[in-house]
């Protein structure tokens, strides 16, 4: 197993509730010893111990292997146990059960600026922070200029960091951390610091680390970053690994958890909604791969299939589809009159029909959408609308984000065409160019 970097087997960590939040005083302990010894007498005969009531398992029987050079993403809600896992692997805290084997030197980055002292200068803090992160003095000496250049604080290197702006502080702190060179790097949600430009720089640095063949465990809530950096991910929920596999699948699983989506609906013979002329039989959402789904990638096309039966010979069926966002705003509506054929609004024979509406990829923003369908058959009096026929989740697969990691504002996120012209001299601009 020479390519193994980390092996985790049955790792569990139990916390007493409240242990991580407040601190106990001696009085608390004395009171507890006293009340517990009383309880022994009280509970005698009841036979049941309530000892486990005050404990939670922050990690419960977690096992996985990480290969050398692998970048493993760790996804999960706040409090799921991600940080506890990193804390155990970096030896900050001991597990309650289970064990882990680590094949290589470990560097951990659970916080930016650990050990910084406000009274010390930037220069002094580089040495202090570097030493705390496990660097040798010679190593810090060697990389000193690199740290300073990365942090872009050359002018303030001999100023106490308490005089720094928060941006400068974070940049300096991260630059020291970013130059750690362990074989295995454990990184918590630390890239979400600084301004957008610096975040990008940090991610670039992380990418470099990955390319150098080092093993990285990377905890983040930024799915875009996880998707780009990690080939494999694990999803942790309430202390256990829910899923372990390819990053995209894990992200999909994570984002779809707890969301009651409905990608298809079929009504029984008696319940089919409609009017005297035609009734809906089934509606379903089809992904670009042709599968029924309730979750689509925003970069891919999706199709809404409407299955209906025409009861009245010669009915003039007109369909409409409306899409709503979570706030109830109508994102758009679309009528079947865009179809270039004989059906829309024209008399048709009775029988089963299938109409499809294609919604292009790169149109929707990420989030939940609701589909309503309405139909009419010639006259407005016969119009009917069925709200929330389908509910689906548009998932940002990160493909379109490229170098931008934030969220996109807006109800939709169409992929528009950008074009930048090469620099050229325009006749009309000559007069204004003099200053350049």
């Amino acid at each position, binding site marked *: 197993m*020479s390519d193994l970097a980390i092996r985790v087997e049955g790792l569990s960590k139990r916390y007493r509730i409240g242990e991580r939040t407040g601190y106990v005083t001696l009085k608390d302990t004395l009171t507890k010893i006293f009340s517990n010894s009383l309880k022994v007498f009280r509970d005698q005969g009841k036979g049941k111990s309530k000892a486990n009531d005050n404990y939670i398992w922050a990690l419960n029987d977690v096992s996985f292997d990480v290969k050398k050079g692998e970048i493993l993403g760790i996804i999960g809600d706040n409090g799921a146990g991600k940080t506890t896992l990193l804390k155990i692997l970096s030896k900050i*805290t001991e597990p309650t059960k289970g064990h882990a084997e680590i094949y290589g030197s470990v560097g951990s980055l659970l916080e930016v600026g650990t050990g910084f002292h406000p009274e010390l200068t930037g220069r002094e803090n580089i040495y202090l922070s570097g030493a705390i992160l496990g660097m040798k003095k010679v190593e810090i000496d060697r990389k000193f200029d690199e740290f300073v250049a990365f942090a872009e604080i050359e002018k303030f290197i001999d100023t106490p960091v308490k005089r720094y702006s928060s941006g400068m502080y974070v940049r300096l702190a991260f630059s020291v951390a970013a130059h750690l060179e362990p074989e295995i790097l454990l990184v918590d949600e630390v890239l979400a610091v600084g301004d957008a430009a610096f975040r990008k720089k940090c991610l670039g640095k992380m990418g470099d680390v990955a390319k150098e063949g080092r093993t990285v465990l990377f905890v983040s809530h930024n799915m875009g970053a996880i998707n780009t950096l990690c080939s494999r991910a694990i999803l942790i929920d309430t202390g256990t690994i829910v899923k372990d596999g390819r990053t995209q699948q894990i992200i999909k699983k994570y984002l779809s958890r707890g969301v009651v989506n409905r990608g298809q609906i079929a009504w029984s013979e008696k319940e089919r909604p409609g009017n005297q002329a035609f009734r809906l039989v089934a509606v379903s959402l089809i992904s670009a791969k042709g599968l029924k789904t309730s979750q689509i990638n925003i970069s891919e096309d999706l199709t809404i299939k409407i299955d209906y039966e025409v009861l009245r010979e010669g009915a003039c069926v007109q369909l409409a589809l409306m899409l709503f966002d979570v706030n109830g705003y109508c994102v758009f509506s679309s009528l079947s009159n865009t179809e270039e054929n004989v059906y829309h609004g024209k008399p048709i024979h009775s029988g089963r029909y299938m109409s499809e509406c294609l919604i292009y990829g790169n149109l929707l923003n990420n989030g939940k959408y609701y589909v309503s369908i309405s139909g009419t058959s010639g006259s407005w009096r016969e119009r009917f609308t069925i709200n929330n026929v389908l509910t689906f989740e548009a998932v940002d697969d990160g493909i379109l984000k490229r170098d931008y990691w934030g969220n996109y504002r807006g109800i939709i996120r169409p992929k528009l065409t950008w074009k930048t012209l090469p620099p050229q001299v325009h006749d009309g601009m000559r007069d204004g160019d003099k200053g350049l």
Partner: protein
Amino acid sequence: MLKKNIKTPIVVIKPGLGVTFKFKEVWDYRELLYFFIWRNIKVKYKQTMLGVAWAIIQPFFIMVVFSIFFGKFAKIPSEGLPYPIFAYCALVPWTYFANSLNNTTNTMVAHQRVITKIYFPKLILPVSAVLSGLPDFFISFFVLIGMMLFYGIVPSANLIFLPLFILMSIVTALAVGLWTSAANAIYRDVSYVVPFLIQFWLFASPVVYPSSLVPANWKLLYSVNPMAGVIEGFRWTLLGKGESPGPTLIVSMVVILFILFAGIIYFRRMEGTIADRI
């Protein structure tokens, strides 16, 4: 750069590792120990007007107060020495010990953020807290030399034993500090108890009075206090007065070493869960 074909794990993580000593690891982290000491010294007098003068002011003014009240008014005997130098010679190791114990007690709590965010052998913290007080110790020691010149006191050849007594005061502060720092991480009561303890301890040590005042049948119990041996040792080596250390010193040393090793075991046991409980 990466090592290839590693068959055995470099690190094994499992419950209950806190019972081993891991002195080698502390040695591996010696640079961090150095940086912590360096930082403590550097930060200590930042943004103060008098700066390092505080290292002298504290013991010197206590000496003045003691000389007036205990020396002049209470007429406490001082082994035939002028009371100021009799008291100051004791205050130099005592101030070092008291400040070190106080700083050590609070060091784990002061480093709470670092402890919960990164791994390092926590033993470094109390050790650095104790060693960080040494510059102040030596500064106040120079004042003692000045006072000795002033009073015309020449130390005897016993001076060669002085490093032993300095070492004893360091180790005593560390030994007690290991207990108080680890306990304080969990029970903050300790940080309120320790200043009291230091005040009582001051009177249980021969700072304001000579240990010859202690009745003979109490001597053995008295030597359980290592600081009694340290202070008498300072007077003996530097001023040539006071009781020469005998078997009581052995008792003191045994007591210190016992507190120290039990303290290390206690500290190491706490270390495994300290990040969760601090």
